[in-house]
């Protein structure tokens, strides 16, 4: 009786340890990383920040896409906003799509930000951070440039106004547009 009980207790303890190990392995296997250059950007569908409706990244397949992750509480996003708007005004004639993804933000503050900086490109909201997580976003702003096939051409972790980033950004746009 005692031996049987001891054996059962050992089995339960082993099962607990195995369960915890499996959880650890699952967690490590499901860690989210930024998509690398050349890989296809993760698909997503998000609500528009202003107005109803949802936008799917797949609907822009065939066009180069600039995907900018930002938040209203992010200081560097403010200085970047004017540059993005200017580039959008310049590149949209060439069929380049700019998409802003508002990350971990209050919708009301985000709308005020868009209005204050007179941003006119489509804005999407990712309050829960589910999509930004799949893009490995750890800070904002971050920007991805995708080519016509939806592949990543460039990933900039930081404002595109950073020294050295502006040149890379324009090179990537030219490459994505090719």
């Amino acid at each position, binding site marked *: 009786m005692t031996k049987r009980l001891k054996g059962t207790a050992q089995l339960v303890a082993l099962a607990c340890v195995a369960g915890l190990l499996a959880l650890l392995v699952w967690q490590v296997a499901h860690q989210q990383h930024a998509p690398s250059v050349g890989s296809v950007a993760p698909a997503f569908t998000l609500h528009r920040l202003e107005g109803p409706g949802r936008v799917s990244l797949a609907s822009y397949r065939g066009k180069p896409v600039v995907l900018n992750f930002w*938040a209203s509480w992010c*200081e560097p996003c403010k200085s970047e906003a004017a540059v993005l708007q200017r580039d959008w005004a310049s590149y949209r004639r060439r069929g380049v799509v700019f998409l802003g993804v508002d990350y971990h933000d*209050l919708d009301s503050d985000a709308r005020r930000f868009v209005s204050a900086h007179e941003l006119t490109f489509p804005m999407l909201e990712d*309050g829960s951070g589910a999509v930004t997580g799949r893009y490995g976003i750890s800070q904002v702003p971050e920007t991805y440039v995708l080519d016509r096939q939806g592949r990543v051409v460039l990933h900039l972790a930081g404002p595109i106004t950073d020294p050295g980033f502006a040149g890379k950004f324009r090179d990537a746009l030219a490459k994505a547009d090719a």
Partner: protein
Amino acid sequence: MMLRFAAVVVVALAFAGPAAAACTQPRTSQAYLDGQVMCPTCHTTLDMSDSQAAVQIKVFIAKKIAACWTAKEIETALVANYGQQILAAPSHKGFDLLAWWLPILGVLAGALALAFGVWRWSRRRPDEPAEPVGSGLDEEDERRLDEVLARFE
């Protein structure tokens, strides 16, 4: 950053004057909600963080408290914006229930194991040999031990 938050709270409370009089229920506290809501970028509760995202939510909470919103209403608004993970405590449904029940089950299992162990330890087993009475030496050894000890007296 803290100064900005403090300034906004002061302004919110200043405007709260007339609203406070109109509040029909006890006002919830900033400190309570700061302990219940997570900072989405740093994964700690708001009271542990001064990040920009946390300050933004603290300001939102301060404004809503000033506007007589209840804690539940504020939490609901935050969940609608950020998702369920904005709350420090897991929800009481679905998979999240495990987070509530597992610790209780663990404590119960531990208490049961302890009770069983005590019961077994206190229970005398019939096949267990009785504790030897006396020194445990046989007569011959006892006699020799007495002889040796007598030499020292």
